[in-house]
């Protein structure tokens, strides 16, 4: 399925090098949905080439946090930096002011996102999905975009499906196209929002294989997922979110075997 001879990231010219060693730095992030206080001072730092797997009970704010990192959600206080740049806001006299749309769009080019429901563009073929943003956002010329696009589809094992529409692909195939689409923008950071939870069990493996390969090649990743096999194998660090705050973090071995927090222990026992 995966073409194992060459790394996936070869297709985009190797591991993207962010400017700083800390790729993501979130400090005391607060988010309300109306009266519902979802993020209650979430803080997290992710270093270059680090793979962070985030777990937590339903409603703990995992997805909201991930979506705040590329400003698909507004936050009410706190700061999120990606590559040293404040995301989504400008600071004026110590207050946060939402940034101009064009600047936000530019920042998002550096951040790839993979959604639970794939969100492929149904009116475009797999290849067109992959080359859409490089061509119309980065203004890469068509021939080069196609070449990179085909190389990426080859790396996720879907070169033969380049001309297929999303409706003609299985869930696992759609999600692999979605990963290729995000990688085509040569992001410095990849966000995965429960990428396998909408998939039938037999398709989960093919998507996780692509993600493991990316992790091995040094992509910086934040993954919200309850796939514990993947976490043990690929994660550099586990993060437990509960009620909008990080309550525990650590390397997978100690995190799984000796969780210190009572709620982490209870949650893990339910997962396994």
């Amino acid at each position, binding site marked *: 399925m995966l073409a194992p001879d060459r790394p996936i990231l070869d297709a985009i010219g190797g591991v993207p090098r962010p400017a700083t060693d800390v790729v993501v730095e979130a400090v005391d992030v607060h988010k309300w949905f109306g009266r519902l206080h979802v993020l209650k001072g979430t803080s997290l730092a992710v270093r270059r080439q680090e793979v962070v797997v985030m777990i937590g009970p339903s409603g703990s704010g995992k997805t909201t946090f991930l979506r705040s990192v590329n400003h*698909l959600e507004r936050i009410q206080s706190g700061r999120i930096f990606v590559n040293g740049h404040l995301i989504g806001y400008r600071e004026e006299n110590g207050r946060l002011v939402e940034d101009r749309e064009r600047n936000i769009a530019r920042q998002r080019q550096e951040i790839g996102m993979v959604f639970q429901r794939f*969100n492929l*563009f149904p009116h475009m073929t797999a290849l067109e999905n992959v080359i859409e943003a490089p061509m119309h956002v980065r203004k890469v010329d068509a021939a080069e975009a196609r070449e990179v696009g085909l190389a990426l589809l080859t790396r996720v094992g879907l070169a033969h499906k380049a001309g297929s529409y999303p409706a003609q692909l299985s869930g696992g195939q759609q999600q692999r196209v979605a990963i290729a689409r995000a990688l085509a923008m040569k992001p410095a950071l990849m966000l995965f929002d429960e990428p396998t939870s909408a998939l039938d069990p037999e398709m989960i493996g093919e998507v996780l294989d692509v993600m493991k390969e990316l992790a091995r090649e040094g992509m910086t990743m934040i993954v919200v997922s309850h796939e514990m096999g993947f976490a043990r194998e690929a994660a550099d660090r586990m993060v437990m979110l509960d009620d909008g705050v990080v309550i525990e973090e650590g390397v997978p071995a100690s995190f799984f075997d000796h969780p210190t927090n009572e709620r982490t222990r209870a949650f893990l026992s339910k997962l396994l």
Partner: protein
Amino acid sequence: MKQLRPRSGGRTGLVLTAAVLVALLAAGCQPSTYQYRWDFFFDSIFRPDGLIIRGVSLTLYIAVVSQVIGVLLGVLGALGKMTKAPYLRGLAEFYIWFFRGTPLLVQISLIYFGLGVTGLYGWPDIGPLGEFGKGNVQAGIFALAVNEGAYMSEIVRAGILSIDPGQMEAAKSLGMTYGQAMRRIVLPQAARVIVPPLGNEFNNMLKTTSLLVAISVPELYVTFSRKNASGSTVFHPFELFLAAAVWYLLLTTVWALVQARIEARLGRGVGGEAPPSLRERLFGLRTRRPEEVPTISGGR
């Protein structure tokens, strides 16, 4: 999901149409003081004079131009109604409210006579365009277009809202701006949803042009109305307006064929229900074969 029994709706439509035609012919055979001049009817259709040709061309021209402008205004109206900018939204809401809430006949008169008499805009002729550039033709197109734009706004908005918000988010996550995402991702998908009601709007438009009688635009209806009022064909309203009806039917039927082709093209590559057949389109009756169980397309 409930299975529907096959209905013979299409057949009923055909039978009804035939019955009406037979009744019309029978009426023609009955003794009466009225002298039928069927030659007026057939000549109007098979040997149309310059006036009729002009009428048909004007009707088609006005309908096409008004509809095109109406669609563009509809996209603007829809985006305006969904924007967060309060003044733009207010403007869009006022526009839609006004033109959907007043009769088209009033709008036509207000735009042509009202603007003309006050000197706000006198609708001067555009010389090189000849009959197509007359002031009242321009005013008619303007009125039909802004009226249509108000209705299209709601259709376009419904089309945009029917697209999964995940599409906009995916586009934004790739670095697109709102405008880029709308243009490249959301609107092309919404177009598929918009095309069937748009086709119906244009069918209406072809017929609604006849309201321009109010400002004496010599389109199809006015042409036949004038033939009925003067000349060798004076006072033969039955033959003349029946001929007018046939001309309108010709236009709407050709459009139904075109619409069927457009919908078939748009349907390529996506699943879902087959578009209605020509017969269903013309008689407005949907026949459903029992094996055709409705499916929900998209998503797995």
